[in-house]
């Protein structure tokens, strides 16, 4: 198996007058797991299906490794895919499903490879079962085995965990990540769940309305979102306005320094700017003359943290307090002071 990269070169996909993907250029490094993340209808699944060959670009070029695969049907590409619904063939056993893609091999080798792949996902002994006799999690493993057994240059996942319950979802997420690392696979992974994306990705590509909103590592996207959209999509963020002056953000009485690198990358000028405030960016303290005064509007105890909505001169802010054991009742007066991270300027578009 040789993992290959994937390159999109100014790719468009139109359906009549509607545009699903516009002028998309991206590169997926060999051996990395890249997540396409975004709200429904943002073009992420369409992009994945263009890598698979299930849809063709209206314009532009798709390359796998160095080979131009634009226009090639799926069966002539070195990719395989795990579908959201798993798409296991209901009339074939687990073994037959997994061996399906190996029809070019001699029988003995085919069976051996299928058995090996089934064992790899922990389903040894299930070869003769029909998909309808398996649980949802087991069906998912079969789907992964069926895709893996081809040793594809690129492995595609289309929201593979969305039909599983929360506990199983986290477990399968970790297994997919471990498998990818162990085998050095190139993986393109579509999801709309930001927590899933943060947990498994080398790179995340956030898409919105057919375009890339921002691409980067999970840490970059969370700590330095380019826009209010990315900030709000990657976790919670309160939008607000602030005044930027010589690298310092002024939010009412608060002054927050901005990392110099971020300032240069974003090209922010002194003056009024949009900012995103993470829920953990402001510490909730007893009222004092320091900090931003506020009043608790609503509070909820969530176990690990307490969640508050606090009325301030910047607007109503959604904040969390990891230290709270009993949440403050509504009406309590508080002062808010910045922690070390979580308040950043964002571009307005």
């Amino acid at each position, binding site marked *: 198996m040789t993992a290959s990269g994937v390159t999109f070169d100014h790719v468009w996909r139109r*359906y*009549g007058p509607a545009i699903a993907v516009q002028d998309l250029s991206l590169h997926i490094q060999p051996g990395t797991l890249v997540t396409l993340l975004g709200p429904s209808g943002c073009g992420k699944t*369409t992009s994945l299906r263009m890598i698979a060959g299930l849809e063709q670009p209206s314009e532009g070029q798709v390359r796998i490794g160095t080979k131009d695969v634009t226009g090639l049907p799926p069966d002539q590409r070195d990719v395989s895919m795990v579908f*959201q*619904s798993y798409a296991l063939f209901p*009339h074939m056993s687990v073994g037959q499903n997994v061996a399906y893609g190996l029809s070019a091999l001699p029988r003995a080798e085919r069976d051996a490879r299928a058995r090996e792949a089934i064992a790899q996902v922990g389903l040894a002994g299930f070869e003769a079962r029909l998909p309808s006799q398996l649980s949802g999690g087991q069906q998912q493993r079969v789907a992964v085995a069926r895709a893996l057994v081809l040793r594809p240059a690129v492995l595609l996942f289309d929201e593979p965990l969305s*039909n599983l319950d929360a506990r199983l979802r986290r477990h399968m997420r970790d297994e997919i990540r471990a498998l990818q690392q162990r085998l050095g696979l190139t993986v393109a992974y579509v999801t709309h769940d930001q927590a899933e994306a943060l947990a498994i990705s080398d790179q995340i590509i956030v898409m919105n309305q057919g375009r890339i909103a921002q691409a980067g590592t999970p840490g970059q996207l969370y700590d330095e979102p380019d826009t209010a959209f990315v900030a709000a999509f990657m976790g919670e963020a309160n939008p607000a306005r602030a005044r930027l002056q010589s690298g310092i953000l002024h939010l009412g009485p608060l002054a927050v320094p901005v990392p110099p690198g971020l300032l240069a990358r974003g090209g922010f000028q002194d003056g009024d700017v949009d900012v995103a405030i993470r829920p953990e960016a402001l510490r909730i303290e007893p009222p004092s003359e320091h900090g931003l005064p506020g009043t608790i509007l609503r509070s909820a105890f969530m176990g690990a943290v307490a969640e508050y909505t606090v009325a301030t001169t910047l607007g109503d802010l959604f904040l969390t307090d990891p230290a709270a054991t009993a949440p403050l009742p509504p009406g309590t007066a508080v002062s808010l002071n910045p922690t070390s991270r979580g308040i950043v300027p964002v571009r307005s578009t």
Partner: protein
Amino acid sequence: MPNLLVPLVLAIGLLVLPWHMQQDGLLSPDWLGLWSTDPASAPALLLAARLNHAWLWPVLACGLTAAVAPMLPGRRLGGGAMLAAGLLGLALMAGQGFAVGLAGWEWPWLERLAGPLAEGQFGMGGGAALAGFGFLFTATGGAARLGAFRGDAFTAGAAGLVAIVVLLFTFWPICLALLSAFDAGLLNFAARLADRRLWGWGGSALNTLALGLAVAACTTLLGLAFALLVTRTRLPLRKLLRALTVLPIITPPFVIGLGLILILGRAGLVNQAASALFGVDLGLWIYGLPGVLLAQVFAFTPVAFLVMIGVVEGLSPTLEEAARTLRADGARTFRTVTWPLMRPGLANAFLVGFIESVSDFGNPIVLGGDYAVLSTDIYFAVVGAQADPGRAAVLAWILLAFSLSTFAIQRWLTAGRSYVSVSGKGDSGLPQPLPLGIRRLCLAVAVPWAALTVAVYALVLAGGFVRVWGRDWTPTLSHYGRAFGLGWGPGGIIWEGTAWPSLFVTLQLAGIAAPLTAGIGLLAAWLFTRQRFAGRRLLEAATLLSFAVPGTVIGVAYVRAFNVPPLELTGTGVIIVLAFISRNLPVGLRAGMAAFSQLDPSLDEASSMLRQGNGATLRRVLLPLLRPAVASALVYGFVRGVTTVSAVIFLTSGQTEMATVFIVLRAVNGDYGLAIAYASVLVAILLAAIGLITLLVGGIRIGRRTPAGVVA
């Protein structure tokens, strides 16, 4: 609080309405027989008290008990009394009906025991029917009160109603008819069953089998080709194909046969052209197996298409996409994924085609010539010059065995083998385009078929407007004039045309039968999909089984069972309405079951949490959501009532001549002009009726995901 409706029904049935059948039909003036001293129109109480019908006293006494039983206190006492009184009432009604016939005691031992009776009685009528319903619902209400049917009186009553309809109007007559085959002894039956005239070369049983297999094979392949073309290509032909497949549903099946005669018959276009151009006489090849085969394939391909399109549309496109990403090219994907997944559906379509073919009566009688099949043989054994009821019963055995065994195979093949929607939620794939070879094959089959269908219909339409097809092409309206002429007399319009009486009777009877069929069918569907009670599976199987009973067999059975008291219905419209209901019930049932299974059962539960009983839930929540199913059940009930031939040809009389029977008999006698003119009008009326019902009830399609990006 006891429900007063059922005692009221009992009282009206026993005290007000005439007990016996009205000879002059339901709308005769002496219908309300309260004070009549004519035994034909007196109610039960009067008959027993003043007119020597003493055998009705036990029924009346039981009726009184049944009417007061609901007021008894306590679950066990009240419920038990209701159940007992209801069942006893039904038993007494049946007992006296069978025991006392037109001329007195039916059974000699009763006469020896009780002495001869002064007078006998007619068959049961409106009063008896109401009383019967009263007893039935008293019994089911009692059962519900005792805790059966989860204590719900509505469910109990619905189950009782469906059971009585199936038992009384399907099973009982068929059993009687089949048993009559043994009248002349078992040996005689065996000898007749093994008759060379049936199983030898050219025998009707063998012919029926061969024809059925051929028709099933052809219709299945055609239906598959059309389904693939319609769902998997973007041909402009698709819309036309869909429309064409509706036409044969609203056409009496034999009309296709008539159209074929116009093209390929003795005086048909092809024969005329051949003799004019080449001086060749093509002969009468169309009369016989080729003609019947062709006509049935035309008539029943739409049925196969409807089965197959459900199968093809139900296939998850993601499965095919998965195969493509697993290195399978288009052809291998079709061979290893698409085709195997369609196989259960193909078997289903094949068996449906077979049942339709062996049940068909119209095409064999119009086109069959010397090619005898069982359904026409049965007809001639009943009405022909050498009428032989025993032989008819034997033939009915064979025909029923064919269709029931097919039905059994179908259930066995498709049980638990449907792969449709196994894959669950989240599919967003698009259907793969057809492999080129298969697409070409489909086109090569479908286009000529579509052209021929259009030709057949165009010619049927045109055939009504020429004097004598093939000999005298003068345009004329005389056929329409003969059929639908109107005159003006002193009293207003005079319906002079020969077709008017049968048209009115047909529309009236089909119009009465359609809502009843749809209602009982949907009620049964609701029972079978939504309720759990003992005997449900048995009742469901019995109801669906009547779908497999060929119309000819129903006709023969009804003639025999309903010819004598207690149910003397032969010659009336009632028997035809009953035949429609029992024939078409499974159609409404299937439509209803499909619709119900798409409705989330938690809707029912939500409604019952909001203090609504089962009846109210059905009426206020489910029925409004089922409007498309109601519409299609009504349409099918009406259309099949108007277009059916096989069952009603035995049941019509001078007073109740049906349109299809009228047309078939004209066609058999060579009067094609009139037959064709009438058939065209019938099709037009049905089209209008479907439009009207759709307009009134509304047809709502629940759309699938359209190919992505086709933004409305």
